[in-house]
């Protein structure tokens, strides 16, 4: 009832081809954006901005990048964090070495640098597939982090390899409150997410999906594999690179190469699998799930323990957190192997009839 597309007639090609052809989706999106841009800054506390919302948006962007590569083009990658590292260090160096470069330009340059590195490490994908490729992308993960540690030039000869990011100047104004940073991150993420949404329904996106479903068949119908796969690597790394730059500049403020660890790559992979492989929205849902669940458990477990008088020590609580986290991942996969985005889809189908299912 609430979500019924019947009666929405398209009278022009433009209307038919728009990004969100269903009216409810459009309204929903506008409401969501209004809340994100106007409501949240009014209501949320500093803790929410610096500890939850900003990392959520940044990781969602990285997950989006990985989703383009894995979910749409079918190339499993375990090196996303390394591409984020490239972005972070590139943005730092552009700011440092190019006099007066605007921050947004250096973010874009950071993304492009990451894209270049991504293409380089995407080359093996032309020959290697599946889990073999996944393990091969680990080479990127370890090699890039090692390079960042080993070439002191990249960290401006800091003795420890740690970089502290420069000030965030936007049009002559310094962004230093969490709200301003949040709005900057949000704008970039929304822009790039809409871009991705648009890209995956274009010729490029359809070519990616054909390659994902079966690359031999795709090449038979005339899709050239090399440019298609490499483009996926480039776009994906671009997204990860920008996410990395934001991670350094808007979230932590100082990063070390080891911070972009394999663990982080895995975390991004979890996000897309839990959220939904091959779904833009899934990247956001997954990022929220993976980031919020541990925090929720951290707060909830001691509370429940107190409620039932269970004597938990801090160490046990921490152990149970990890255990429950693992168990919930398995549980979700068993319940819905296609991720949260699929649950959302099912919900939408239900909403089409609800509250009058007959």
């Amino acid at each position: 009832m609430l979500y019924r597309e019947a009666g929405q007639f398209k009278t022009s090609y433009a209307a038919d081809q728009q990004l969100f052809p269903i009216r409810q989706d459009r309204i929903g999106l506008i409401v969501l954006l209004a809340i994100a841009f106007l409501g949240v800054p009014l209501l949320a506390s500093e803790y929410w901005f610096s500890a939850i919302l900003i990392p959520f948006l940044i990781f969602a962007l990285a997950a989006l990048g990985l989703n383009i590569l894995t979910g749409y083009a079918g190339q499993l990658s375990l090196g996303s964090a390394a591409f984020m590292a490239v972005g972070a260090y590139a943005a730092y160096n552009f700011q440092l070495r190019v006099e007066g470069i605007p921050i947004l330009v250096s973010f874009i340059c950071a993304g492009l640098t990451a894209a270049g590195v991504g293409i380089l490490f995407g080359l093996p994908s032309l020959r290697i597939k599946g889990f073999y490729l996944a393990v091969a992308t680990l080479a990127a993960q370890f090699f890039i982090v090692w390079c960042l540690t080993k070439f002191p030039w990249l960290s401006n000869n800091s003795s420890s390899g740690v970089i502290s990011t420069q000030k965030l100047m936007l049009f002559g104004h310094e962004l230093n409150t969490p709200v301003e940073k949040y709005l900057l991150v949000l704008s970039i993420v929304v822009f790039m997410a809409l871009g991705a949404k648009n890209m995956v329904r274009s010729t490029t996106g359809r070519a990616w999906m054909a390659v994902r479903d079966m690359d031999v068949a795709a090449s038979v119908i005339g899709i050239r594999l090399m440019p298609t796969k490499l483009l996926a690597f480039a776009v994906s790394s671009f997204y990860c690179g920008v996410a990395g730059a934001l991670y350094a500049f808007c979230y932590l403020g100082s990063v070390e190469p080891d911070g972009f660890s394999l663990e982080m790559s895995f975390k991004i992979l979890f996000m897309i699998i839990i959220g939904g492989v091959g779904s833009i929205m899934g990247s956001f849902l997954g990022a929220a799930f993976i980031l919020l669940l541990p925090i929720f458990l951290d707060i909830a477990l001691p509370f429940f323990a107190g409620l039932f008088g269970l004597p938990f020590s801090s160490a046990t609580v921490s152990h149970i957190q990890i255990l429950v986290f693992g168990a919930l991942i398995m549980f979700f996969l068993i319940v819905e192997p296609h991720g949260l985005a699929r649950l959302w889809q099912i919900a939408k189908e239900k909403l089409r009839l609800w509250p009058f299912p007959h």
Partner: protein
Amino acid sequence: MNFFFEVLIGGLLSGVMYALVALGFVLIYKASGVFNFAQGAMVYLAALSVVGVMEWGAPLWLAVILAFTIMTLFGIATEKFVLRKLVNQPPIALFMATIGLAFFIEGLAPMVFGSEPRALELGIVDEPIPWILDNWNMVISKFDLVAAGVASLLVATLALFFQYTRIGRALRAVADDHQAALSIGIPLQNIWAIVWGVAGFVALVAGMMWGARNGVQFALTFTALKALPVLILGGFTSVPGAIVGGLIIGASEKLAEIYIPPVMQDLFGGNFGGIEGWFPYVLALLFLLVRPEGLFGERHIDRV
């Protein structure tokens, strides 16, 4: 030259240790097509069970038996409660489930047995053999030789098991084609339970060897990272591949660590050591470009 051989032999012996971990991956991948990321965590669980049970006062042999029981039960439970429910799902979902499993183990094991690092004494001293040291001035560790012996024995046993027993043949049939195996009456689920049991056993052996070498602690889960390049090199489905891959990775990584950084230092200046983290992966990657299915992997034929 002497030094070269010393490094080479040391590398080969380390490679055997990597192969031990890689074997567990191969077994499960071969029989169920699951890339079991939890293998590293299983190594940790197994080693921790041994020292944990010993701390409760059991002798080593009993601890090993109990740990084996724990690992088997754990394998069966995994099959029953997780994998069985994910039959016919895409491989990435199964892969993800094993990552969830890894977290589960990493929370559970230290909660039960305590998280402080502990020593595991197997009664083999990790010292150079004096005779070789005196005659050739080379360092070869007794412990590493024993580990190599154990690994060879394990591989031989597994190979015989796969080749000649009834269960082994069933395993191979399942590995070839799940549905075909089911249709000729092979009980798929029992087979999977057995495979996870065997993988648990391999994890136990690997855990004891690595635990005796570096102490039983959380970092045992990292051993998986050493095993992955071995896997790519040897092929995901080949038991001998794991051994050969292990030897190649072990030897080349040690030689690279000794001989490549000085060359790079001459080129760029600065210190370029510590390449062991990525070198095996890059090596495996280059190798894959020539042979995408690994050394002994099954050749993949694409059909539309």
